[in-house]
């Protein structure tokens, strides 16, 4: 029997992925910023100069250090009750990332499960699941979250549950579409001929091949969750003070927009930069993971 060789110069999956990902400069910048935010969240106790919930008597609403009345002890100034802004922003990364992670994971797991079931079984099960998802999608997401929070009570955990429910339909739709297109492919039939049962076919054969659009959706859900949590916090229904969550910080500082603009600007900038970074990263992920865009 003749000896066969495969391509010896085949790149590893990771290096090929990086080749396509790095073509998108914005995505690389986004990734870098995200890594920075992640590091800040992990090492917050080491980086932050002060305790974020500690009040400093007489130090309320100090401007940042580069203004004339600034104090070098508080680099970005203090908030309305005398807490250090920089420390609160740094600790705020923890909450934002935590919210994003929990919401994205919960809605992804739930959504994928429902999507696989709907896409695999089709028929009435499919119709029922998709109609329920349509109903959820018909509600403005923030409104639905507010309603849920009103029922369950304000607070970060309840806000996260609310956003997970609201984000689910996107995952369900994506997964269902991917499953429907994959389940007719020959490797699935081959597994069936080998005797694979329903569960094995659904989760071990078909699902791993649907992951690419789901990963992209997960990054988008991540950033959307941060924004939504900030919005809810702004409305006073999300994280409650003294929690240093960026949206809550915005809510506390609303009245000082004219007099002490930095109180509003810095949390707002943090939200903007983090969400933008994750969105850019998600864009790059989509380009890198979509096989149809592969150029070689």
């Amino acid at each position, binding site marked *: 029997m*003749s*000896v*066969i*060789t*495969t*391509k010896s*110069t*085949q*790149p590893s999956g990771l*290096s*090929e992925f990086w*080749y*396509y990902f790095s073509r998108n400069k914005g995505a690389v910048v986004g990734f870098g910023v995200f890594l920075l935010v992640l590091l800040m969240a992990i090492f917050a106790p080491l980086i932050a100069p002060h305790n974020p919930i500690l009040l400093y008597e007489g130090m309320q609403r100090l401007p940042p250090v580069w203004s004339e009345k600034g104090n070098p002890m508080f680099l970005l100034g203090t908030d309305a009750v005398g807490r250090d802004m920089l420390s609160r922003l740094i600790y705020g990364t923890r909450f934002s990332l935590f919210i994003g992670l929990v919401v994205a994971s919960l809605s992804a797991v739930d959504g994928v499960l429902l999507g696989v079931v709907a896409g695999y079984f089709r028929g009435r099960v499919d119709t029922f699941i998709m109609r329920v998802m349509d109903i959820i999608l018909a509600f403005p997401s923030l409104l639905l979250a507010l309603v849920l929070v009103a029922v369950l009570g304000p607070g970060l955990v309840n806000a996260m549950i609310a956003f997970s429910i609201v984000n689910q339909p996107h995952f369900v739709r994506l997964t269902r579409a991917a499953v429907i297109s994959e389940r007719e492919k020959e490797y699935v039939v081959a597994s069936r001929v080998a005797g694979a049962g329903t569960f094995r076919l659904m989760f071990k054969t078909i699902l791993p091949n649907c992951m690419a659009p789901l990963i992209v959706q997960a990054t988008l859900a991540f950033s959307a969750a941060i924004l939504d949590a900030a919005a809810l916090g702004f409305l006073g229904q999300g994280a409650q003070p003294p929690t240093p969550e960026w949206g809550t910080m915005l809510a506390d500082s609303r009245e000082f927009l004219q007099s002490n603009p930095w109180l509003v600007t810095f949390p707002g900038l943090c939200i903007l930069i983090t969400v933008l970074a994750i969105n850019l990263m998600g864009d790059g992920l989509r380009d890198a993971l979509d096989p149809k865009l592969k*150029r*070689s």
Partner: protein
Amino acid sequence: MALLDIENLVVEFQTSTGPFRAVDGVSLNVDAGEVLAIVGESGSGKSVSMLAAMGLLPWTAKVTADKMVFDGRNLLGMSASERRKIIGKDMSMIFQEPIASLNPCFTVGFQIEEVLRIHLRLDKAARRKRAIELFEAVGIPNPAERLGHFPHQMSGGQCQRVMIAIAIACNPKLLIADEPTTALDVTIQKQILDLLMRLQTEHRMGLIMITHNMGVVAETADRVIVQYKGRKMEEADVLSLFESPKSDYTRALLAALPENATGDRLPTIGEIFMGAAQ
């Protein structure tokens, strides 16, 4: 003077593992009224070299040649607008997947009239008349009615006929057929090949037939070029190629044909020609 004259064509693609040479120094020429077959397996670069001549490669491809001349005009460095005046009119191409090569959103009549409108500047009535003529020439029954059909309403063989009609609409001097019958059934394949040969004889067109099927080569070609991994292995007239092939690769290729099987097992092309393994 040759109709199409290409010398030392090199096509390189940018890939994630570095540049990849799909065509490595191929030279060929076709005279008016001649049928040239380019034979090779997948990865031999046979389609890429013709796509390069037509200017249809993506931006990741780098095309260089010592000479690439069609009908006295230099194709290298030609601007896109000048090229558009030639392709579809004097030099046209038909592809392997007939249904996929037609735009699914438009009727076939619209697509063939598009070519007539752009290249021949005919008015609406003249276009319709010519479209019906062309459909008759390629053997589509009920041409007037078919003009209003969409590609998905027609079979593979009929779509290929439509493609051929579009390709010969402006009486091209050279027609390039890239595996035109590979996706078709055997009986339809014969009809399409007969049609192509008839049109070629009637219009004295140059025809380049790209294929991997030696039977098609035997039934259509005047001259044959054998390509392997981007390089030209042999060039000969069709009878000499089959009777006394000079290159080892050609010999191995002919020996691997099941119809030439002498014993219990087919002779396989040896280590030097691990075509599919790379």
